[in-house]
């Protein structure tokens, strides 16, 4: 570089701003009339349209085993969908430029460096401002959306919405969840302290989990209900959910916990209130007698 090129940098780096350039609207129209600009915009539009079915596909995969079975899971899926749609245009522009670069602006092959040079575009204040502005606005949107949703699901879990104001909250059920290598135990302190290896809960009733571990870190993941919290030794963590769909769903350990981590899974049966009551009688009866 020392000998090859001695053009001053400053000249190319900061193009002089003519004071009497054509009007902005004219320059925009001229820019849009360039063939490559139109082609890239068309490719980007097509990619954007393709992302919408992809966003549905994401939700389809998440719902394959019965989700959403709680309003928390519904909120999570909504967030996934919105984030996909929101990021689609940026993704589309990026891929469109990549595609057009290979298809439209020409390629050269060969062993020797090409003689023909490309336009020396060192900067473009408008493009930079647009890009930084757009990504900043998108990031701000993600933050605002995320904070709002986090507050919402925290309220649905256990947070700012008191248990007695949650939907159908006359009878919140506390459940003590204990992880150990390699099984889960669920205790119902308000139901005569019955314990079970499978969660049985009534539909539309707020559940409140006190989660801990006897040995190493586990993670209590109720898949289709969209809740997850570590089970730590020496500490109690909390989460909660109100199931709104009848059925049998998966509980898995989502933190590597040793030899049989893969098998540390069980089920949650969401049943009607009557079925739950009879289950409690059955369990409690067999226990107290």
């Amino acid at each position: 570089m020392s000998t090859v090129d001695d053009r001053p940098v400053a000249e190319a780096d900061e193009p002089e701003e003519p004071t009497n350039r054509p009007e902005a609207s004219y320059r925009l129209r001229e820019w849009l009339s360039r063939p490559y600009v139109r082609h890239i915009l068309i490719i980007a539009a097509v990619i954007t349209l393709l992302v919408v079915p992809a966003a549905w596909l994401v939700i389809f995969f998440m719902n394959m085993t019965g989700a959403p079975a709680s309003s928390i899971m519904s909120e999570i899926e909504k967030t996934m969908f919105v984030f996909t749609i929101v990021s689609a245009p940026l993704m589309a522009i990026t891929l469109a430029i990549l595609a057009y670069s290979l298809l439209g602006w020409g390629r050269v092959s060969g062993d020797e460096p090409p003689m023909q040079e490309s336009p020396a575009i060192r900067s473009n204040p408008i493009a930079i401002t647009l890009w930084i502005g757009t990504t900043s606005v998108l990031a701000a949107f993600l933050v605002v959306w995320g904070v709002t949703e986090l507050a919402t699901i925290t309220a649905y879990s256990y947070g700012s919405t008191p248990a007695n104001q949650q939907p159908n909250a006359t009878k919140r059920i506390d459940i003590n969840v204990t992880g150990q290598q390699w099984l889960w135990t669920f205790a119902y302190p308000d139901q005569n302290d019955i314990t079970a290896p499978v969660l049985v809960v009534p539909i539309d009733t707020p559940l409140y989990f006190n989660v801990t571990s006897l040995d190493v870190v586990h993670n209590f993941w109720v898949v289709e209900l969209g809740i997850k919290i570590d089970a730590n030794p020496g500490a109690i963590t909390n989460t909660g959910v109100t199931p709104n769909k009848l059925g049998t769903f998966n509980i898995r350990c989502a933190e590597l916990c040793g030899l049989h981590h893969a098998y540390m899974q069980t089920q949650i049966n969401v049943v009607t209130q009557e079925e739950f009551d009879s289950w409690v009688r059955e369990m409690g009866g067999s226990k107290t007698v």
Partner: protein
Amino acid sequence: MSDTAVIHEHGHVPQPVQHGKPGGILRHTSIVTGLVSGVVLAVIAYLVGGMLMPQGTLDADGIQVGINAQIAATYIAWVVGFMAGIGAFAGPIRWAMGHDLTHDDAEYMAGKGQGKWRYWKYTTDHKVVGFQYLVISMVLLGLGGFLAMLVRTELGATWTEVFDPNFYNSIIGTHGIVMIIAMIIVVTGPLGNFVVPIMIGARDMAFPRLNALSFWLLFAAVPPLVTNLMLGGMRDGWTVYQPLGAQAPVGMIGYQITIITFAFSTGIASVNLITTIVTMRARGMTWNRVPIFVIGIIASSIMGLVWFPMFQYSQVFALSDRVIATSFYIPQMGGSVWLYENLFWLLGHPEVYVIVVPGTAALMELMVVFLRKPLFSYKVAVAGFAGIVGISSVVWVHHMYMTGWAPAAGYPFMLSTELISIPFGFLVMVMLGTIWRGKVWTRLPMMAVFAVLWNKVIGGITGVYLSDVPVDQYMHGSMFVVAHFHFMLMGAGLFAAMGAISYWFPKMTGRMLDERIGSIGFWTAFAGFQLTFGSMFVAGLQGMPRRVLQFDDAFNVSNWLSTIGAYTIGIGMLVFLYAIVTSWRSSVLAAANPWGAKTLEWQTETPVPLENFPVLPVVTSDPYGYGVPDPYDEIEEQLTDEDATVGAR
């Protein structure tokens, strides 16, 4: 002046006295003496340890508690013995004896007159160290890749357990940490050492002996990591969360010694690179003329230097819990599992950028050459790297959203994590702006730019999901996370490294890379990569947890596809490796500047002579003076002139 110092007239400074032959004891040391000394000292430590350690106290599994200290002593003795044997302590000892290093000593240590043997010695020449790093990173990538094949074999064979679960857990952990180490060094090691000093017009690194020290420390760190598999394995993933890690057999100590040693190596290498870049640039290479690859290397080094100690402390505490009965991480004795998680992720997240940043910067450096266009908005690129360095220090808790440590911390850390997408976006914009309207010279290094940008789009968008606490509540600990970080570390990291290595291959080896075979390997691996991790996203969305060896039938199809894809990657990588090895051994020599590039390393001859330049260059511009005036601007200029007849000029 006092009588302890004298001012000499210029040109009459007395030179240090040569004691013995140049190089002194280093004439007799090499990797052979290192290995012998390391093994002998390790055996002695093992035997003496066996006699000294208290016996009789058994842990819950009926294992002698004392064996932990014995194995730790053995590994430490290996590292110290190896370093002593290869001659790493010769310098300080020489000083202690009052002998200064002469110019002849320095030249001997730089490898003068030792032929090929210099690659097996404590050699200070940055080009030798670069080659050593290149080879060791390829060995580590091969090992990690082989372990990945084992993992995928287990997961693809959905009908049976191929491996014992303990062994399976050991190979996922070893695969993880081997790949992390390999990816941290794969660009910064070979190219940071070989290319950067030449690129900035220096004769060597600022601290040549520290350069040799950093490489051989890394070398010494590898055997403990590999032997862990023979001592029961590190069964706990590369994160080794405590207290699970405390349950693991003594193989875990191998992991801990490796991390502690590797952290020294990385810290030393980072200091060296930063000092070199800050102080040894050629005359005229002002900060706005520094090639962007050098900026990427310094950014990555800063993150490594600042955050690697956290990882090191996390393992020092874990080792002391195991060996000397402290209880940093034992909740029953007042310790905290969250302490470990915080210390671990304080490095654990910046490390992702330590890996991705140099590769991205390398692609920026090479794409201008293949597009014959200046880098678009150098300043925004620098701002992007700076932003990543800054924000990466305050995002680590997004790995701990679901730990219950501090649920309210989800708010600020979601903010910081989503903010880091802005400087990351700067980098993408710079690359797109450079591609904009360029005629692509379709050589392999340039094609890597397209592959990496595609992977970055996928990795970036899935990262946006994961940065969000509610979504992470579903995704955390699932295969979705695994697929995401492979898109970043492998998709954006390793494929960029492959492009960068093929770009600088002619300068390093003096041969052109066989691009026909290399491209077949590259694109085979790329296609396999999309299949492997594309279908792994699906498994994660369906709710498959990570680090399992058996799972619901619902996940079968995506796992079969992933395994087919993984084998395809394996084949592609072997083909690429074949291209590297055969090209390296080829007899056809490459030109000094086959790409017509403008950075300094291409202006010196190939092979690069000792001390790099006959006369140090003086830099008069940045290295991006490619291109012709924009034809559209000329049209606009004419229009403006027509308007000017009306307007006031």
